[in-house]
């Protein structure tokens, strides 16, 4: 059984991390960092799926490589690049490889990436993908036999199904409605978009109190004040308060990592009573993850 499912079921405070597959075949550094810095301090590690539409190695084999190293993966799946046949087929493949945690996402638009002339698929959306997983678990799929009856699977997978939500988006009601739909379609845990405003997060958690699935708050390490400003300007649903931007701006160049880790640790400390865990997205600063967790005072 998925360790993530188990940990979230127990009700402690759970950490997850994230890695991005390489652009190229050189997988060794990513695996090394995962073993070195993530393995012992997070319960599971998300593997991104062609994040921001920038072509990279596929998530599925990287998940399997993590599994082989004793690290539990969360397979991220966007609906941008594959139609319902390919998605379901990969889900069966994931199950056969022993990958249980799957996070369903819509995926950033093609034009945000480096293959702007590609075709965006979106045959399913994130709700449709969750529904597909639920169907597979019940022994059928999204298709029909020639007689118009549900197909029967030869061997049935089990997933621990996740979804995302942006708690600090400008108009939160549509996010909540969509979250309810995701849960109705089968979502069992939530990892959020980056949160930097604990008050806004608290208000959001109150509004979704009726949604009974564990929520891991998203923590993205801010590498410097410039990145914080960039996120404010360009990343939907993310707002870095001025006090954090100022703190990073005031930090000496050699101290900026330290400050970044402190900020992340403090955010987790402030929000740990509001949710089931934290999903740390280090964006390459993998080796800071143990320090963030230490700074949060959770362990």
């Amino acid at each position, binding site marked *: 059984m998925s360790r993530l499912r188990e940990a979230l079921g127990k009700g402690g405070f759970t950490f997850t991390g994230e890695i991005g597959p390489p652009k190229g075949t050189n997988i060794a550094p990513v695996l090394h960092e995962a073993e070195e810095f993530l393995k012992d301090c997070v319960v599971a590690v998300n593997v991104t799926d062609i994040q921001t539409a920038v072509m990279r190695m596929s998530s599925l084999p990287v998940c399997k490589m993590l599994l082989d190293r004793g690290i539990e993966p969360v397979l991220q799946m966007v609906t941008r690049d594959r139609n319902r046949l390919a998605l379901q087929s990969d889900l069966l493949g994931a199950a056969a490889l022993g990958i249980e945690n799957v996070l369903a996402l819509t995926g950033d638009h093609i034009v945000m990436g480096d293959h702007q002339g590609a075709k965006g698929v979106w045959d399913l*959306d994130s709700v*449709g993908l969750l529904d597909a997983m639920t169907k597979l678990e019940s022994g059928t799929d999204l298709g029909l036999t020639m007689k118009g009856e549900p197909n029967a699977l030869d061997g049935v997978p089990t997933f621990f199904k996740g979804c995302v939500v942006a708690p600090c988006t400008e108009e939160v009601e549509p996010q909540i409605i969509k979250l309810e739909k995701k849960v109705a379609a089968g979502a069992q845990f939530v990892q959020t978009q980056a949160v930097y405003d604990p008050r806004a997060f608290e208000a959001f958690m109150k509004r979704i109190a009726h949604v009974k699935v564990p929520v891991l708050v998203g923590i993205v390490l801010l590498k410097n004040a410039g990145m914080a400003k960039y996120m404010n300007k360009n990343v939907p649903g993310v707002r870095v308060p001025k006090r954090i931007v100022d703190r990073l701006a005031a930090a000496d160049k050699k101290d900026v990592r330290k400050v970044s880790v402190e900020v992340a640790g403090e955010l987790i400390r402030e929000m740990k009573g509001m949710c089931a865990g934290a999903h740390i997205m280090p964006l390459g600063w993998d080796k800071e993850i143990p320090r963030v967790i230490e700074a949060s005072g959770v362990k």
Partner: protein
Amino acid sequence: MIVTEMKPVDEILGMIEGEKGVFILCCGGCPEGYKSGGLSKGKDLAEAVGAKGVTVTGVAEIEFLCNKALAGVKLNRSREALRGADSILVVSCGVGVQAVGNVADFPVHPAMNTVSMGGRQGLWPGEERCHQCGDCLLDRTGGLCPITTCSKSLVNGTCGGTKEEHCEVDPKRPCGWLKIYQRLAALGRAECLKALNAPRDHRKYDFPDARRSTVLWALEVAAEETEEAVEASRGTDT
């Protein structure tokens, strides 16, 4: 109205390379109305390719090239000019080019790119408002189409990419799903958003497969084909 634009002259020159003479045929319908083509643009094109040494045997305009019968009759009047031509350069949308290729025994070259069917629904189809998905959702979306207003054609609500009320791909374009939410909320019908919408049935959405083979070539379909044939071509190819 079908929205078109002229192809770059260099690309056109590449298409007609090695031909002794070309005849330029312009559509007087959408390209004229949209001011992207028409007789004057055809004459400009004649001049531009003429300057590169291409022999233009004539330039003509026919009202609607998509009307195959009309195109056939009127093209007859340009017999003389056509005699000296190796091919016809057609200044129209893709349908016009196909129609001319169908009625005239000549190689045809498209001089335009067909950009969209943006226009007045009813008079002319407009794909920017309705993508003819074949399974209309407007009832659940406050009368705003998610297929065309959302950059990802999502059917179950916003992707989370809304930024200052706009779509993640374009700060000038409002997020379709936010608009849908706002409209429904204003109508007191936000609960419509809670319905789980099934994935699209692309058999209904795509140009029906059966049509690919049956419309060779009858643009005045309804009148020419029997009702059964029209029915059959709606693509119940399960």
